[in-house]
């Protein structure tokens, strides 16, 4: 049982860290705002969710579990809302996704 929990913890934490770093690289490397939202989305939901799920297995069932689940709930609710609101606000203020590759190069920061 301990081995199983250990393996599960490692698996969840490592995959969570992987997705977090991938999203971080995405937010820096991707060329324009709407594609950067992808990176933000990955770290804020998948990375955070997997890391907190990994932490859940570290502790017995107690108040700590409840608090972790609350944090997970808040993160899962607020991060996609923020992403959506940002995208929508950007659209209404006149930013459009850049679709062509050659216009992308001229738009680069």
């Amino acid at each position, binding site marked *: 049982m301990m081995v199983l929990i250990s393996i599960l913890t490692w698996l969840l934490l490592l995959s969570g860290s992987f997705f977090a770093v991938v999203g971080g690289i995405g937010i820096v490397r991707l060329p324009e705002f709407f594609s950067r939202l992808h990176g933000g989305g990955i770290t804020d939901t998948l990375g955070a969710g997997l890391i907190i799920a990994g932490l859940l297995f570290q502790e017995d069932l107690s108040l700590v579990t409840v608090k972790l689940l*609350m944090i997970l709930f*808040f993160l899962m609710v*607020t991060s996609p809302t923020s992403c959506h609101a940002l995208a929508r606000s950007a659209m209404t203020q006149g930013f459009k996704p850049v679709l062509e590759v050659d216009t992308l190069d001229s738009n680069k920061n």
Partner: protein
Amino acid sequence: MNSFPIIRVITKLLIPYILLFGLYVQFHGDFGPGGGFQAGVIFAAALILYGLVYGLPAVHKVAPPKVIEKLTALGLLVYAGTGLACMLLGGNFLDYDVLNHGILTENHFLPEGQHLGIFLVELGVGITVTAVMTMIFYAFAGRERVTS
């Protein structure tokens, strides 16, 4: 924020939890991190979030400015009144040991004197901080931009 229906719905969902968390911080402050000041700020943050999303008139209905103005003084009065009550019961100012209630305390209807005093004092701090923060937000949000 009328053009953000999702934010409106999520705010409606979150505000009860923020208030509940504020209560937890207020009353659990003797046992874990937190206390009156932090709880007051969290309460004010919930009110401000409501004001940001639903507009100033809506939050004025929930917490009328006149009530908020009186609450600022009330919190301080609760704090000082606790000290005064200690003096009336025969102790020094803010000496909570005299707040012990004999039978009530022994049967755990009321906590120990020190515990009760800290509870009341933190309550006073919480009320004042909530009211002051909300009032500052009202004062800022109620004005218009200085046009030059």
